[in-house]
């Protein structure tokens, strides 16, 4: 009897301690995440040449509901070619919020860092189940292309399509609020635990840095080092970052264009852009798209309409696309004369509804986008912490900025994408002493260097490397960033040393393909 009493007492102590210490990812005792290998999907198999395998991690959709739905998160494992390699692997999460992992582009990481690499399609994206795509919104691509940025009707249609997507997903039993940053970060931790990994390093490409930063905040004890390419940070909601980033990118462009011969062709980039947007707002122009992605999909040509807001969106998108940056001054100069150049047309005629200028441009080229995840992260993890007066002030009375960023259609979308606000901590900066290497592109309006530097100041051992001449995703453009990352990765406690390759990089402006 007495023994049973002791047992009960010990059990109670264990229970109390258990509730105090948590379980890492916070899952209830009744459920244990599990990782099961499966044959790789054919689209993965065809892309990945090194030794690899695939699997699904089964996790709770909402960890606060231990008896609730489970979902499956896709994971690719790539082995390094080196037979002898460090035991600690690297986990990478590729792409921007809402995008699937960039499978082919992530594959070389294993060989470059001499480690087993795990690549995840975050919950709700890619091969993960369920997938939170919104075909209701995709159906508006041609409507948005043929409308002006200032058209209120098309914004209302966008909000209605978002609502239809919301209603469909929730009627299917999807808890859309669970596809947030906190749960996605807990998936990463559950993967680590399921695989029995004691320590690993983390890497992100693009705005999915938000997920890794949350891993750093919640589960820092298992993280050796982190690299982030073109990251976003939790303390700055995207609608604010969009204005700051666009201003920053344009200032960088103006500075870079201050040298001859660019200056001769376009003496004041920012003034020229103001002239161009004012002119296009007063006199919108059109062009016929016959073979763009949208025309091909709907099976007919369409008249794409362009006003100042549309041009501003194209310019922001181009600042993030490294291959478009050399063409930007001539694109802006032509627009000031009322002409829409070929690169601008290319963006506009292939653009999914309200993508370019809002989401990083690389993600606007593929159909494999989970808008539902993007909206949950925006509406739940960012907008509740948005300083709307700061946003209004930053628009500086510019009509095009007001149209694109002040009347940001995603702000309206969040009124119908009904998710509760995240815990306020999700809008706080991440701190800690994990070694972090942050890469930014000189012109990137989605991850401006000053924002990265400010975020790095909150971290005890974070280093920022700006790659000259580049936009968003610098590790996917050129060897310099990759070689800096690879060398740093072996000694992450120190600042990156081998940065001499930066000295030879710059943007080379050209009007080729730009002027008509």
């Amino acid at each position, binding site marked *: 009897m007495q023994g049973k009493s002791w047992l009960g007492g010990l059990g109670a102590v264990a229970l109390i301690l258990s509730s105090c*210490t948590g379980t*890492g990812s916070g899952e209830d005792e009744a459920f244990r995440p599990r990782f099961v290998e499966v044959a790789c999907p054919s689209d993965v*198999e065809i892309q990945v*040449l090194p030794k*690899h395998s695939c699997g699904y991690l089964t996790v709770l959709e909402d960890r606060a509901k231990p008896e609730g739905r489970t979902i499956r998160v896709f994971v690719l494992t790539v082995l390094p070619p*080196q037979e002898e390699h460090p035991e600690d692997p690297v986990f990478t999460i590729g792409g921007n919020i809402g995008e699937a992992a960039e499978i082919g582009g992530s594959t070389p990481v294993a*060989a470059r860092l001499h480690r087993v690499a795990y690549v995840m399609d975050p919950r709700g994206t890619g091969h993960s189940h369920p997938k939170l795509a919104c075909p209701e919104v995709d159906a508006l691509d041609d409507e948005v292309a043929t409308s002006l940025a200032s058209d209120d009707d098309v914004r209302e249609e966008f909000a209605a399509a978002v609502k239809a997507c919301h209603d469909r997903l929730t009627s299917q039993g999807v808890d859309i609020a669970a596809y947030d940053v906190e749960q996605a970060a807990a998936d990463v931790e559950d993967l680590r635990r399921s695989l029995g990994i004691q320590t690993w390093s983390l890497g992100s490409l693009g705005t999915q840095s938000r997920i890794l930063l949350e891993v750093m905040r919640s589960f820092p004890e298992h993280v050796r080092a982190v690299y982030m390419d073109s990251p976003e940070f939790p303390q700055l909601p995207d609608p604010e970052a969009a204005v700051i980033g666009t201003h920053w990118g344009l200032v960088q462009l103006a500075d870079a264009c201050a040298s001859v011969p660019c200056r001769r062709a376009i003496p004041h980039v920012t003034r020229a852009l103001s002239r161009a947007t004012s002119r296009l707002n007063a006199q919108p122009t059109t062009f016929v798209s016959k073979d763009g992605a949208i025309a091909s999909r709907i099976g007919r040509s369409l008249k794409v309409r362009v006003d100042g807001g549309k041009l501003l969106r194209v310019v922001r998108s181009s600042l993030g696309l490294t291959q478009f940056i050399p063409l930007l001054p001539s694109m802006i100069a032509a627009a000031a004369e009322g002409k829409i150049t070929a690169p601008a047309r290319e963006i506009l005629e292939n653009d999914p509804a309200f993508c370019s200028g809002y989401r990083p441009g690389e993600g606007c080229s593929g159909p494999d986008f989970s808008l539902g995840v993007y909206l949950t992260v925006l509406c739940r993890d960012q907008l509740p912490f948005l300083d709307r007066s700061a946003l209004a002030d930053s628009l500086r009375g510019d009509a095009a900025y007001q149209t694109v960023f002040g009347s940001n259609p995603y702000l309206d979308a969040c009124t119908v994408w009904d998710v509760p606000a995240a815990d306020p901590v999700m809008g706080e900066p991440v701190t800690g002493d994990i070694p972090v290497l942050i890469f930014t592109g000189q012109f990137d309006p989605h991850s401006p260097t000053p924002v990265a530097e400010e975020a790095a100041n909150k971290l005890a051992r974070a280093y920022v490397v700006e790659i000259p001449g580049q936009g968003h995703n610098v590790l996917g453009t050129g060897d310099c960033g990759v070689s800096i990352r690879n060398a740093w990765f072996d000694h992450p406690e120190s600042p990156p040393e081998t940065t001499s390759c930066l000295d030879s990089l710059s943007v080379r402006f050209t009007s080729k393909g730009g002027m008509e």
Partner: protein
Amino acid sequence: MSIDRRLREGFERSAPAIDPKDRVALERVTARARRHVMVRRVTSTVMVALVLGGAALGGPRILDALREDRQLEPVQEPTPSAPIPGDATIAGTYTATLGNEDPAIRGNQMVGKWTITFRSNGVLEVSSPEPFEESRSGYSFEVSGSQFRTDLFRTDVCNDKLPGRYRWQRSGNRLTFEVVDEPCPARATLFASGPWQIT
């Protein structure tokens, strides 16, 4: 139904041999049993008082460690699902010099002398002319008979492109590639511009 979907559903059907509900139930039982064993072991010691006394200080870490250990799945080495890369007969270092005739070569600043080393572990190592600034490390190749596949430049000039397929032939010191299926023009020109000479 697409091939991809059929494949995925096929994989999913064959993956879990145990019904998921049964698996969860089994895991719950196992977890309960392990908890029970853990408690019995603790109570069987004569140091109960110390355990209770020390719990406030060291207990959380100990229990967390115990719990973590309990929850771990066995570590699984990934199973290769692709052919073993590399082939001893192609292994070696080769050079070729690219002229400026091809626009893909000119546009990507690839004119000049190139060196490629094919390692037996399926890795390509590339040395390029000075102006070429793209990533040159970490790429792979795969040889199956006369077929050759590579993802060279996948993260750069061949961004978003699938690996290229070639027929390869080595004759003495010469290595030649013939394009079978190559979505990336720059890569196609690089390989097909041979012959590559062994060094």
